[in-house]
């Protein structure tokens, strides 16, 4: 069965510092992987997604993620965080049943707090 683990419930970093949010997945097939962000009182917004090709995928607002098949990981990174990056970040894997629509399996989320 597919699953996603985000081991860090909460991460606090100083503005301008670099960031890594961890995500581990379990999948019997090559996974589609996603990172979403949720700002207060808003819906989830897609940051980036990955299926194949270059294991480092670029997303919006300077975010990138690196896929590692050997480590079953899809960690999210940003070189320099801004206070406006404070939000909850969700890693997800997509499971599809041929034509019936897909469903996302989510991790528990990581609350990022950026200190000024």
């Amino acid at each position, binding site marked *: 069965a597919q699953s996603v683990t985000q081991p860090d419930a909460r991460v606090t970093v100083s503005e301008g510092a670099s960031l890594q949010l961890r995500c581990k997945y379990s999948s019997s097939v090559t996974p589609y992987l996603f990172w979403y962000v949720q700002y207060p009182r808003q819906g989830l917004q897609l940051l980036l997604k990955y299926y194949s090709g270059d294991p480092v995928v670029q997303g919006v607002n300077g975010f990138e993620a690196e896929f590692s098949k050997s480590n079953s990981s899809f960690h999210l990174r940003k070189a320099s965080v801004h206070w406006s990056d404070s939000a909850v970040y969700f890693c997800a894997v997509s499971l599809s049943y041929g034509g*019936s629509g*897909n469903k996302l399996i989510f991790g528990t989320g990581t609350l990022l707090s950026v200190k000024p």
Partner: protein
Amino acid sequence: GPKVLQIPSHQIIDMGQMVTLNCDPVSNHLYFYWYKQILGQQMEFLVNFYNGKVMEKSKLFKDQFSVERPDGSYFTLKIQPTALEDSAVYFCASSLAGGRGDTQYFGPGTRLLVL
């Protein structure tokens, strides 16, 4: 980017009553989804819906749950009757296509409290 709206944002209801959660998906999207998130837990898939039919549902999608999208209007989740364990945030999502790589766009959620 594309917006999904959900109405209401909050709902408090007595156990046993009926509740309808409304979702206004992205206008040209064809696939619709509901997810449930209990406080402090991960978001979990409830159901997906395409061409007027439920395509797949999880074990969380109890018999008291139903979904529909009459005449291309709101995509709704109805719970009748409600139970205490239905208290959660319910997220609606929509996508243009149903493949694994197709992006789902999410609404801000409806916070349901069953007393």
